[in-house]
Each structure stands twice: as C-alpha cells, then as structure tokens.
C-alpha cells in the first residue's frame, strides 16, 4: 500500500471576526435580558463523563446536550457569571489586538480585587481555566481561536513549508530538532506540502531515531512527535493536516494501554475535551504499532515488560495498567474486533512492549524494516 496525500475535506477556516461576533452576540443577549427585566443567563454544556457519548456515525467522542444554566440572580452562580463576562471581555481584546495569552496569563491579567470588597475576581487559576473551557463549549470555539494558548508540547519534522505569522520556513530545514508546535496553531498555514503522510510518534526518542535514520526523507513523510499524550496544539495540527491538507495519519506508540489511549485520543477525541472532538480528533487515523502481535511477529518476547498493577483475577485487582486495559476494553470506541483482540492479549500475557524495544534488533531496524514493511503491507489497525 502506498500512502498518498488525498483531497482536502476542510478549508483553512480561522477567522478572528467570527470569534468576535460570537462573543458580542452572547454579550448582547445578556444585556438585552437585563434590560427587559429578565434574569440573564449563560447556557453551559455540562462537563464530565455523564455528558459524553460515543457517536457511532462520526466515530467521535462527543459532548451530550446537557446544559447547565448559569443565572445572574442566583447567588451560587453570580460569581461565575461575572467571571465569564470578565474573560469574554478579555478575549475580545486579545483577539481584536491579535495578541495571545497563556491560561496563566489570562488568569493574572484578570485577577484583581472586586471594588469595595475583599474578594478577588479570580482567587486561583483553577477558577479561570474552567471558565475558558466553558466558553469554548458555549461558543463552539476553540480556546486557541480565542487566542488563549495551551501548554505547548510536541514537534514536527518533514518537508512542509509553514507560514507562522510573518515567518515562513521548511520544517525539514530547521535541524534535527524540528519545529516545536506552538500552543496555538489556528493561524498556521501550509503554503507547500511535499510529504505523502504523517507519522505521529509517541516518544521524542523514537522521533529522533527516525529523523537520524532519515526516515522522513526516505519515506516522504512528516514526523509529529507528541511527547506523551498529544497536546491540544498537536491534535489540532494533526486534524488540520488531515482535513485541510489531505494527509493520511499513521500513529506509532508504545504497545501498552497508555500508548493506545494516546492513539484513541488523536482518533476519537477525549472525554475531557469531548466538545472539541470535531476540531481536535481525526477519526481517519490508523495505527501502525506497537501491537501485541508484533511481539510474536518480530520475536520480541525477551524485551517485553510486565504490566504494572494487580491483574483483575488477583486480590485487590485490577489496578494500574490492568485497570486501564479493562476500561479501554469497555469504551465504546475500542469495540473494534482487532482492538479487543490486542487488549485481551495484553491482559492475557500481562506484558507491554515499548517502541524502543525494537532497538533490540538494531538501531535502524525500526526505520528500515519495521515501519516501511508494516505500512507497505497495510498491517495497520483501525
């Protein structure tokens, strides 16, 4: 199987004006309600697992339609009501001035004493972060689109040209360290794309290995190192590379419940950010490894590691990796036959296999044999 760039399904859609309009519309709704003597409110989609479901049709983890109504005249809500408006005003300024702020900056910028009281507008960042999440859900707008950046993590390497504001550069000409993905990728544009697919790699060590082995050049792909669980920026970037640029997405993680969950997050979205699945997830992504089958296939039995925690059939179990495996077995988005088999094998054998265990063969093995073979032969999991 030869991976090729496909026709894009989405267009670059970032438009600060849209965000501003949404903010102002909501503010006007509130103001009009107050004017006409009604109790102004925000409708906030409820957070948490019980307002999350797996949408079989779109194959995404999505947010349910449960709302909680936040009224001004309710003393229990009033403070959050005020905080929401403060942050809305702040975001309006950020977006219209073309500035970005981190969550922490947003917190500090808006923290002050409420006049005439000894109360602060925000006592702690744990008060402002959820309000920003609420706004994302209320407005259906990414935090990044509101110019609030998340923690950055992850980098890319490969022959694509990136336009980031006034800078334009090729991501394969920045040295072996690649280009660090910023917190916000909304404004990033891709004037030139010379790769056939994207290989998402869990560990930086493995990404570095592949870059050193010139894998991206040879296989004509873009490496995305997530460095653990993919950050929002990376997930959004993957989403955009697939939908806006038509690049197939292949994910390469450790063969353990944690690695597989990284894949699932990229593919299906996450429970916490279920409301963003449409913008962050990439249901078309495929999984190359590591799998339990790889252990047999490549004779890696002696480099597996034992799963951590207590197995379900032992007293006090399941805990640790076992518990995670059982959870995954039960998630609706892990019900695929292939995946159920992998999970059950892991449970049965009680082992995990790391990406870097492939170095047991040789350093080049992963770049020259394992990945090319598996991808060429289409040995991918859905």
């Amino acid at each position, binding site marked *: 199987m030869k991976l090729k760039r496909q026709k894009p399904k989405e267009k670059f859609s970032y438009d600060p004006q849209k965000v501003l309009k949404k903010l102002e519309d909501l503010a006007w709704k509130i103001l009009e309600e107050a004017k006409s*003597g009604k109790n102004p409110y925000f409708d906030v989609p409820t957070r948490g697992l019980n307002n999350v479901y797996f949408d079989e049709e779109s194959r995404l983890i999505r947010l349910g339609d449960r709302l909680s109504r936040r009224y001004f*005249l309710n003393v229990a809500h009033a403070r959050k009501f005020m905080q929401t408006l403060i942050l809305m005003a702040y975001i309006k300024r950020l977006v219209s001035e073309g500035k970005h702020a981190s969550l922490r900056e947003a917190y500090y910028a808006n923290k002050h004493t*409420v006049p005439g009281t000894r109360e602060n*507008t925000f006592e702690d960042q744990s008060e402002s972060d959820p309000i920003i999440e609420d706004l994302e859900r209320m407005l259906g707008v990414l935090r990044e689109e509101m110019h609030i950046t998340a923690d950055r993590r992850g980098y890319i390497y490969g022959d694509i040209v990136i336009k980031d504001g006034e800078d334009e550069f090729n991501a394969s000409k920045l040295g072996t360290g690649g280009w660090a993905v910023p917190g916000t990728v909304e404004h990033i544009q891709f004037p030139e794309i010379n790769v056939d697919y994207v290989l998402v790699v869990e560990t930086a060590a493995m990404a570095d290995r592949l870059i050193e082995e010139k894998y991206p050049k040879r296989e004509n792909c873009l490496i995305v190192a997530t460095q653990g669980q993919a950050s929002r920026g990376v997930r959004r970037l993957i989403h955009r590379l697939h939908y806006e640029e038509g690049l197939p997405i292949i994910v390469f993680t450790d063969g353990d419940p944690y690695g597989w969950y990284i894949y699932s997050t990229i593919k299906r979205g996450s429970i916490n950010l279920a409301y963003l699945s449409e913008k962050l997830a990439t249901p078309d992504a495929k999984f190359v490894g590591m799998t339990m089958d790889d252990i047999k296939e490549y004779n890696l039995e002696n480099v597996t590691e034992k799963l951590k925690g207590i197995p379900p059939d032992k007293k006090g179990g399941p805990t640790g990796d076992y518990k995670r495996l059982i959870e995954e077995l039960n998630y609706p988005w892990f019900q695929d036959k292939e995946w159920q088999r992998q999970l059950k094998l892991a449970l049965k054998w009680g082992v995990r296999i790391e990406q870097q265990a492939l170095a047991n063969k040789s350093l080049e093995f992963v770049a020259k044999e394992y990945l090319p073979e598996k991808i060429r032969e289409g040995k991918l999991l859905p």
Partner: protein
Amino acid sequence: MAEAKDLFKEFKVQSVSEFFRRNAAMLGYTGKIRSLTTIIHEAVTNSLDACEEAGILPTIRVEIEELGKEHYKVIVEDNGPGIPEEYIPHVFGKMLAGTKAHRNIQSRGQQGIGISGAVMFAQITTGKPTRVITSTGGEIVEAWVKIDVQKNEGKIVKKVKHPNPKGWRGTRIEMEVKDVKYVRSRQGVYWYLKLTAIANPHAYIELVEPDGKLVVFPRSSEEIPKPPVEMKPHPKGVMVDDVYTMAHRSKRSSVKRFLVSEFSRISEKKIEELIKYVAAIRLLKSEQNEEIKEKLREKLINGDVDSVLRSFGRKWKKEVEKVAKIMEKPPEKLTWQEAEEIVEAFKLMKFLAPPTHGLRPIGEENIKRGLTGILKPEFVTAVTRSPKVYAGGIPFQVEVGLAYGGQISGSEILRYANRVPLLFDAGSCVITSAVRSIDWKRYKIDSFDSAPLVVLVNVISVHVPYTSTGKQSIADIEEIYNEIRLALMDAARKLALYLGGKYRRMYQIKRRKTLEKYLPEIARSLHILTGEPEEKIREYFLKLIESKIEVEEVESVEVEEAEA
C-alpha cells in the same frame, strides 16, 4: 405556781422564735443570700399587692446599704395606698396570722407570714425594730415596729407623726438585718427584682445596690392587673385539715349548709351523694374479705355507689341514716375523722370542674412587654393557655414567654409561680424538665444552651403544688408538665417562624449584596463587549436586582410580624 407561770411564759417566748427558726426553710430564711432575697420579696410583694388592690401603678424603690460584714440596712419604698395607722401593728407584727393560709386565692405571697417574718428576722438578728413610714394621704406616720412574741402581735415601740404638705402617699420600711449577704447572683436581690419586673411590666422598680449603683427596671405597661378574687375551694382540691379548720370557723348552721355554701360545685344533691359515699366507705372498711373489698372498691371508684351499698344488705340504710345525721349537726362539731371521710369521698366523687375566674395570668401582651422592656430582645412571643385542672379538680393555668436575640446573650429559664420568681431548686422543678424536654432543634434553635433565648414560664393556681415547703420548685405533675410543654411548643412555633423569616431576610440582604458587588465588574465587561455605556448597564442590572429581590425594612417590622 408563779414559777410555773414564768416558765410557761418563757416557754412561749421560746416557742415563737423557735417556730421561726424551725420553719426558717419554709419561710424562706435559709442561707445568707436567700434570706435577704426573701426580705425583699416580702416587702415588694406587699407593695405590688397593695398597689394592685388600690389600682395604682406601682413605683418601688429598693435600697440596700452595707453597714458592716453581713450587716445591711434594707429600705423598700412604694407609692401604694399607705397603711392606716391602726393597721400598722397588724400588717407588720402579726406572726402566724395565717391570713393567706385559708383564703382560697391566687396570691403572690403564699409564703405564710409575709412581711412580719422579715420584721421578725430583723429583730432576731439585730434586735432592732423595723421603721415604717407611711401615709394614706393625710399626715405621715413614722413608727418603729417590733413583734411581741408573747402576744404574737406587732407592737409599736415608738411613733412620730409628721405633717404631709405635699400629700405624699405610700409606705417606706427600713430594717436592719444581719447574717445576710448581698450578691449579684441568680439567687440574689438583683435577679429577683429583674424577674419580678419582667412578670410585672406595670411596675417601675429601682434598686440601689450596696456599692451605690442604681439599677432601674422601667415600667413597660400602663395596665394595672385586676386583683385576684377569692374562690371557694373545690372539693377535689382540699385536704382534711382544710375541711376541719374551715368547718370550725364556719358560722353556718349545719355541716350540710357549710359544705354547700363554702365550697364550689357542691349542691344539695351532691350532699345526698356524699352521704352515700361516706356510708359506703364505712361499710367497706368493715368488710373482712379482702377480695370482695377490693371488688367493691373498684365499683365505688367507677361511681356505682348504689350497688356497693346494696351489697351490704339491710345494713346500708342504717349507715346512710347515721351519716346523714353528721350533715345536720353544727359544723364546729365536725370531727377530724368525719372530715377525713368526707375528703376521701370527695376523691371518689365526680364534680364539675372548678371555676377559673379566680386565676390571674400575666397575659400574653404583658409578658411580651415585660420581656421586651427588661431584656431588650429582638423578638418576643407569649402564650397563655386556657385554664386546666390537675389532681381531678385544682385549677391551674400555664403561660410562657420567649425572648430571643437582641441584648440577650445566653439561654435562661425564668420560672414563676403566680408571678413570683422561683430562684431556687431549679433542678427539681417541673418547669425546668418541661423546658428541657422540648426538641428545640425543631424550632430552629440548634442548641438551647447556647442560644440567646430566655424562656419564661408562669404557673398559676390557687394551689401551686410545690415540691417542698421552700416553695421554690413546682412538683412534676403530669397535667402541668404537659400544659407547659404545649404552651412552649406553641410559642416556639412562632419563634421558628420568626427565625425562618429572619434567615430568609438575611439571605435576601446577603443575596442582594452579593449581586450588587459584582455589578461594576459586569458593567465594565459588558461595556467592552457591547460598547454600551457602563453607567447604563449598571442601571439595568440594578433595576433588575431591585425588582427581583425584595428586602423588607428590617428592624421595625420584625416584632409586629411575629405578633401577627
């Protein structure tokens, strides 16, 4: 013989003071603090009663001067009707007069010997006479009174008359006492007067303490209570001694006439019934077979007196005739045993409940005034229950008052019997146990002991069942206990309603404050978002708050609302 006569005299002298000493507890003269309180009690009670009877709003001034260690001068002055000169020895000197003992009247005193006991106490401890200054409006009489223990009556040892150009009227008594102590405790004079002031809101009472400090308990009601009326005793409420004594004093022609006219609820027909009962009781006593006796007794209790009599065959008619003769003889000929039989019969017979017009409660309004005037609470409520009877026929009435918050700092139970504060033996009193039995949590009082709550309970009766001769605690009688509880629960419901409203109002105020404090932030943010002027936005929201959250004016409405 002369020697014997002297001895006898000596014996008599001893016996009166001996009587006083022996009955000190009953008379209230035990303990240094309590003795002083009792003196004040007797004097103030006299003043209040006199004013009440004369229809005067009482103004009473109490002064206590410290003359030495446990040596005080006590002065009580009132604006009452004054005492006519010829009555002075009687009022202040007659020991054991028993003026109240056989009057079936709800009175404050009921302590037996009244102010003369105080005079006696002063005389015993310091040997000094009591100085009385009084006027009924004419000339002022100043008299020094002692008790002649031999004659058991008052003796004026010195008397001076003064002109009364300003028309002063009232009574002032001064006495020197030893072996007493002034302490500002829960058993002391201060506390006694405070409680008296609460239960007598129509009185103005002031106290000058030994250190010169003036304490004023202001008048909070202009309404003079009606004096209690004497009630004929109810057959269920009398003891053998009462019947015997009354009979011997009676001037009626026969026992029958005496019973019909000097007791309430006894008619001619009842006398016939009484005769049958007494006869039945006599016959029953002669019965040897315990089993039959018990059966018949039960029948008698059930009121089937006729069948009890008939069961004795022919004997009963004779017995009835015998008893009927008792009814025809003069009352002073009534024997103790006969009186005993009559009282026993009374216990078995059924009578109409006694009239209650003789009971004089403080009244809900006056309790509220008293509590408000003296304690300055933020909320008061009071409940006066309708009269009930206990022990089958003794009328009594319960009233309670609750005062909450304001200047009240802790919880307190104020006990009264016929308006007289009970300061001692709280632990054994039915009032204490009834108050404690209430589940105060149900009435929004989380912890009774730490709540700013004063509970007043007044038990009114012509015959308050005290636990002991000290008359400081009321016996645990089920009917009284239940009435106190019902009254308390009724009042507590009103308190709970008030507290509910208070919390609601406090919540509304808090709510409004909370919302208003966020307005500047909200207005500023909405101004940035919409471009509308901040001032206008603030106005919209302020109007919104005002229209949606109503907060009544606080202080002024509360008491009224609670009364509704």
